[in-house]
């Protein structure tokens, strides 16, 4: 059963109207952060979403957690549209879909003790009586590797970056969610401690049986942690498949460029030059068709009109590029 689905979801942000626009009678521009995304997140899977800044992955996260409303399309939790949920359903939704944030320093309230930070969700949503909340807080702190007797009454500024991120994870998991959306949880941590936190997330997902949407720009981490991976570019979903397939045999020209530009920590390997033209642009007043066309070395006139939507219900390796088969012979593998 699909836990969370995005049906043709788009999100546009208005650029605040500048005075010059007013003078020259231009309409305010819009940034299309997300364009016609379809997503199905199933039980017990880790779905990775990768892409560079501006691709819409963070906006997608926020919409998935119900913190932003889509401009068009709908997001459904267990089949019910979250925009039209009853109060009781909304509490259930909030409890079941939680977020882990990127910045371990900023995502914790500096005035709260650790215990209060973790207990805030259940308290705000009145999930359990106070005594039971305290018990669950203790348990979850143990599970993330923090001894409650030592940490419960400390303040965020007394903890290291890794410890703070563990607190963030505890705060998300104490509500016993079914889906955890993790927005780049490792990128602000020192590299030598990332592996432990990654393992923690992987193990907790297995033990506590939740699905995870793991958003990152770091494809090597996704290759390590995710089951399926979705690549996004300027608001569009361009490639989807099993993580290893997408990374080792990328089918979309953007993914190929992306993967070939990741530096490899070994001086003996030369990764070659990524095949891409120009610099990334802002998705302002974007038209139909493929948003990657202006930078694509294989682009044709057709590309400005055509964009193949992906079937995100499966793990079949697909690319939104209609020329994938022609350009990269034998790349698509079929897995059901």
């Amino acid at each position, binding site marked *: 059963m699909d836990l969370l689905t995005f049906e043709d979801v788009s999100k546009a942000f208005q650029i605040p109207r500048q005075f010059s626009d007013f003078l020259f009678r231009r309409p305010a521009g819009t940034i299309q952060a997300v364009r016609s995304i379809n997503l199905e997140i199933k039980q017990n899977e880790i779905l990775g979403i990768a892409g560079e800044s501006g691709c819409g992955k963070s906006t997608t996260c926020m919409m998935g957690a119900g*913190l932003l409303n889509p401009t068009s399309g709908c997001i459904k939790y267990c089949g019910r549209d979250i925009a039209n949920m009853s109060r009781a359903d909304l509490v259930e939704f*909030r409890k079941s879909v939680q977020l882990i*944030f990127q910045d371990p320093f900023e995502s914790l309230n500096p005035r709260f003790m650790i215990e209060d930070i973790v207990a805030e969700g259940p*308290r705000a949503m009145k999930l359990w009586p106070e005594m039971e909340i305290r018990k669950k807080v203790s348990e979850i702190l143990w599970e993330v590797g923090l001894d409650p007797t030592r940490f419960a009454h400390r303040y965020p500024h007394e903890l290291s970056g890794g410890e703070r991120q563990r607190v963030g994870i505890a705060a998300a998991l104490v*509500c016993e969610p079914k889906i955890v959306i993790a927005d780049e949880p490792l990128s602000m941590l020192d590299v030598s401690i990332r592996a432990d936190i990654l393992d923690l997330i992987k193990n907790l997902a297995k033990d506590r049986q939740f699905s995870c949407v793991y958003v990152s720009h770091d494809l090597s981490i996704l290759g390590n942690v995710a089951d399926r991976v979705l690549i996004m570019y300027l608001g569009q979903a361009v490639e989807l498949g099993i993580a290893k397939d997408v990374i080792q045999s990328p089918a979309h020209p953007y993914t190929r460029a992306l993967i070939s530009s990741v530096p490899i920590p070994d001086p003996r390997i030369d990764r070659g030059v990524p095949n891409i033209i120009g610099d990334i642009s802002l998705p302002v007043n974007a038209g139909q068709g493929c948003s990657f066309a202006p930078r694509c070395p294989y682009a044709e006139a057709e590309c400005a009109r055509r964009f193949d939507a992906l079937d995100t219900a499966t793990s079949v390796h697909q690319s939104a590029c209609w020329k994938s088969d022609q350009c990269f012979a034998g790349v698509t593998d079929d897995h059901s």
Partner: protein
Amino acid sequence: MSFVRIGGVFNNLINQYKIIAENRYGLIGFWIVFFFLVVALFAPWLAPYPPWEMLFANDGSLASLRPPSAEFPAGTTHLGYDLLSQLILATRTTVMIGLISGVISIVIGANVGLIAGYFGGLVDEVLMRITDILYGMPFLPFVIVLISLFGRQIEYVILAIALIVWRTSARVIRAQTISIKQRQFVVAARARGCGDFRIIYRHILPNILPLLLLYTSFNIAWSIVTEASTSFLGFGDGETISWGGMLYELWLSGKTRTAWWWFIAPAACIVALVTSLVFVSRAYEEYANPRLKEER
């Protein structure tokens, strides 16, 4: 649902002292304010004479317009009233008005600022336009008009002052709320299911506390100055004595040029208390913005 732990309040007060004490001036200011607080508390027992009793010197004459001496350390008025007693009893009035007006004004200002800043949109517009209108009002005339409307009693004086002093803190707290609202821990609170008011009062408020305390101190200072001014202009409560009122009496007596002691005593008290409160608010300013700290 309790938002505040009672046990923690005492701890908090000690913390506040530590914060204030970090700054040299804050420390001086704190102790001066504390001194005035104690005087205000024990005023009736400290004052040697009743404030409006005609006093006579040892030789039987009216102790009129005596400069400071051993018998009358602050001197006397033209009617033989002891200025020291007046000063001490006036301290109580002034401190009370200052505290109450200051606190009421910060409560109004903080709530206006928090709500306007958090919700934005129409709520923000309406609240800020009200604040703007109040900004347009000339301070003293406004208070005087209100006092004239409601009456001269001390309660109305307090109210009138509070109703205008809140305007500055509202603006600043709104700005701070807007910037805190965008921080990740507020987004996190929303993701964990917190409602709007819980976020405002439980998550944002503790983070603007230094600013709040800064303005509380400042508002109290401003209330005291306003009260002194209105009393000096003759719009104070006739029944209670205040430092400004003492200056008014001086003015009425026509002895401003000769009775220098009558002028210095209340004026010095006003300056001392207000400046001390401003020093305390400086200590909070440094705490709220550690970059202002001097290098030691």
